[in-house]
């Protein structure tokens, strides 16, 4: 199959993939290089519009918005990846043990899970943050911990489904230890489910981080954050609508691209 017909057949995959690729490149760029220091203020350029020097204009402190969007994207990306990583690692561990062994351990863990899931997650995040303090690292940890129960539940289902299959019996029959069966024999079979939960989780993490920062309980200055910028941009919505539009578009594109990519992948897998 040639590339053109492949793209036509998998529009979602192609479009989502390209958007995601661009956003990742921008975020990685933002990690190392921005045209201006995202925090450097230039009062003379305060709220200036689009110009060759500032392609997205400047904010109320005269900071270059494009640089801040780049930096904000990379902050968001780092927090989201960290969150998903914490969620999936611990979720998989808990899911593996509870699903594979079952019994009391399973009962207790899952009831505890239900209890955590019953709270609105933003509220729980708020509690975490007020105990641990805000900032990039703490937001990542708080969101990561909040993600564990839902990941654990999904992975538990996978391990539960697999533990009595014939090939697991064969492995047990070969004298494989429980650890080996769980992580060498069963785990690779859960990759498909794992990937789609990672995809959903990534988007949720981006939204949660943006939401928390918007409310002022997330990432703190000097780290740039898209959510925080959006809340600042709100005050100047009628003077400089471009500020809010550029920041909002960054969040929208990030999530849109990634959802389309993951949907396309799922359809293809």
């Amino acid at each position, binding site marked *: 199959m040639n590339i053109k017909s492949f793209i036509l057949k998998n529009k979602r995959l192609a479009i989502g993939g390209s958007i995601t690729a661009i956003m990742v490149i921008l975020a990685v760029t933002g990690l190392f290089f921005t045209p201006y220091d995202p925090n450097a203020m230039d009062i003379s350029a305060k709220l200036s519009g689009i110009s060759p020097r500032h392609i997205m204009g400047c904010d109320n402190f005269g900071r270059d918005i494009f640089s801040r969007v780049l930096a904000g994207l990379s902050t968001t990306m780092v927090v989201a990846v960290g969150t998903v990583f914490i969620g999936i690692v611990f979720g998989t561990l808990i899911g593996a043990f509870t699903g594979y062994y079952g*019994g009391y351990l399973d009962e207790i863990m899952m009831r505890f899970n239900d209890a955590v899931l019953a709270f609105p997650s933003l509220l729980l995040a708020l509690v975490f943050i007020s105990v641990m303090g805000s900032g990039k690292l703490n937001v990542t940890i708080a969101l990561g911990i909040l993600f564990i129960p839902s990941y654990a539940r999904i992975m538990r289902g996978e391990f539960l489904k697999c533990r009595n*299959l*014939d*090939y697991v*019996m*064969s*492995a*047990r*029959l*070969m*004298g*494989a*230890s429980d650890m*080996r069966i769980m992580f060498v*024999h069963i785990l*690779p*079979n859960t*990759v498909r489910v794992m990937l789609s939960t990672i995809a959903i989780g990534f988007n949720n993490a981006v939204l949660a981080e943006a939401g928390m920062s918007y409310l002022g309980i997330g990432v703190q200055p000097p780290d740039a954050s898209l959510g925080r910028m959006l809340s600042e941009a709100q005050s100047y919505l009628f003077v400089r609508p471009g500020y809010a539009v550029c920041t909002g578009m960054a969040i929208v594109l990030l999530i849109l691209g990634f959802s389309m990519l993951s949907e396309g992948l799922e359809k293809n897998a």
Partner: protein
Amino acid sequence: MLDVIDLNIEFHDHITPETVVYDFDLHLEKGEIVGIVGESGSGKSMSALAIAGLLSRKHMKKRGQIIFDGVDLLTCSRGVLRKYQGNDICMVFQEPMTSLNPVKRIGWQVGESLRIHTSLTEEQIREKVIKTLADVELDDPEGIYDKYPHELSGGMRQRVMIAAAIICEPKILIADEPTTALDVTVQAQILKLLKRINKTRGTAILFISHDLGVVRSLCERVLVMYRGRIVESGSTGEVFEHPREEYTKRLISAIPKMEKLKDGQ
């Protein structure tokens, strides 16, 4: 070599406990082929799984003894049991379609027992796996080594399962209806293969089937099970020529007429 004495298996996952195997006795010598026959649900698989140490320890109660090498497999620790599993006692299941891990390469799966029980290097394991794949009469063992299960036919998968089972040169191979899911020609080839493995390697085989014709041609001794009990046992010739139990007689009379025609000619 293997002695099963008064094995009882009781399920405890319902309100009332349910016994599925009563007073199962079996003695297996080195190099013997013993058959277990009986209708569906008579407890053949349960007994086999118990011997292989595969029955969960939680939901069922087992009484009796399964002595192998002087060790009681029913009461020994999981660690000790694991040393025998795959190394001395192996099993081939009925369903070749689901007994292989769908996301792992054939070669990796066949070599798994070696990885668990020996300290061979990956190189040596690969060599031995390819030799064993050739040994179970698979063409192009090197090509099959890198394939995934879905790329093989049922008969080929069953050969792969047998290769995985015998790679550590076990003393006992339990085959639970290994040919039921296969067509007749493939079935005959697999039976021949099992017989050859038994001859050349001296592996004792516990062969479970409800096909009396197959059991008759393969096994030296046979146990007949009915509703969880062994109702008759003895050498194959004796049981088939002079069945003592009414149930065995009915089983034998149910063998398709073709067999009788052949015998009569």
